[in-house]
C-alpha cells in the first residue's frame, strides 16, 4: 500500500513539476505547481510527519499559491511567454549534472553513516512531539522566523500596496505632485 502510494505520488509530482518548468503559459504553470504542492503533502503524511503535511497544505496551497494568483492579476497572464532560449540541451545537461552532484554530496554521508537521533520524543503523537521540540530546542529560531515573517509582511505591503496608481521608484513630477497633494489632504 505504501509502495503504491509512493510511486503514484512520485510519478504525479514529477509530471506536474515538469509541466511547471516546461510550460509557456503562466496559468498552466501555476495550476500544476499548486497540484504538485498538494501531492507533496501526501509524501509528508507517508513519512509520518502529519503536522508538516498539514502546514504544507495550509501555507503552500492556501497562502503562497493564493498570493501568486493575486499577483497574477497585475501581470498579463493569458499571453504566452516568449523566451529567447539558446542551446537547450546544454542547459538540461548542466542542470542535471549539477543536481546529481549536489544530491551525491549531501546524501552520501547520510547513506554511509549510521546517524543517531538527537532530539527524539517517545510516547507522543506527531503534533505533540512537534510542539515539544519546537518550543524547547528550537524556540529562538521560531521567534526569529516570526520576526522575519513580520518584516516580509511589512515589505510586501509597502512594495505592492502603497500608491497603487503611480510608481514608487521613478521620481517624476506626477509623483511629487501626488505626494504634496496627500500632505495637504492630511492637514
Amino acid at each position, binding site marked *: 500500500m505504501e509502495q503504491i502510494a509512493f510511486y503514484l505520488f*512520485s510519478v504525479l509530482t514529477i509530471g506536474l513539476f515538469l509541466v511547471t518548468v516546461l510550460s509557456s503559459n*503562466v496559468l498552466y504553470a501555476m495550476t500544476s505547481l499548486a497540484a504538485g504542492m498538494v501531492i507533496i503533502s501526501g509524501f509528508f503524511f507517508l*513519512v509520518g*510527519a502529519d503536522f508538516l503535511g498539514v502546514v504544507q497544505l495550509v501555507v503552500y496551497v492556501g497562502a503562497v499559491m493564493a498570493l501568486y494568483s493575486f499577483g497574477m492579476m*497585475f501581470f498579463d497572464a493569458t499571453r504566452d511567454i516568449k523566451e529567447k532560449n539558446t542551446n537547450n540541451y546544454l542547459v538540461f545537461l548542466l542542470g542535471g549534472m549539477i543536481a546529481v552532484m549536489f544530491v551525491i554530496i549531501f546524501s552520501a554521508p547520510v*547513506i554511509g553513516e549510521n546517524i543517531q537521533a538527537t532530539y527524539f520524543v517517545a510516547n507522543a503523537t506527531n503534533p505533540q512531539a512537534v510542539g515539544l521540540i519546537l518550543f524547547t530546542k528550537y524556540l529562538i529560531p521560531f521567534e526569529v522566523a516570526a520576526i522575519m515573517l513580520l518584516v516580509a509582511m511589512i515589505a510586501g505591503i509597502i512594495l505592492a500596496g502603497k500608491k497603487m496608481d503611480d510608481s514608487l521608484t521613478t521620481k517624476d513630477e506626477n509623483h511629487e505632485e501626488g505626494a504634496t497633494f496627500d500632505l495637504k489632504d492630511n492637514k
Partner: protein
Amino acid sequence: MIGLNEYLILSGILFSIGLVGVLRRKNLLMLFFATEIMLNSANIAFAAIGGHYGDMSGQMFAFFIIAVAASEVAVGLGLLIVLYKKQGTLDLDNLAVMKG
C-alpha cells in the same frame, strides 16, 4: 517498504527539475516557481531523513524552510509588481539596465 534512498532519489529528481527551470527560464515569475520546486524537494529530503531516524530536527528544518519560502514569496512578489509597473515586462533580458 519504502526506504530512505527512494525518498532521496525522488528529492534529487525534483531538485534537478527545479534547477533546470532556474537555468532555462527567462521570465522572473517562472524563476520563482522553479525556486519553489527546489525548496519543496529539500523539504521532502529533510522530512524523509527525520522520519527514518526518528529525529524531529528534520521536520523542524522543513518548517523553517516553509517560513522562509513564505516570506520570500511576499517580498519577491512585491518586487515583481513594482518591476512590472516600471518596465511593463518580467523578462530577465530587459533587466540589464546597468550594463556599461
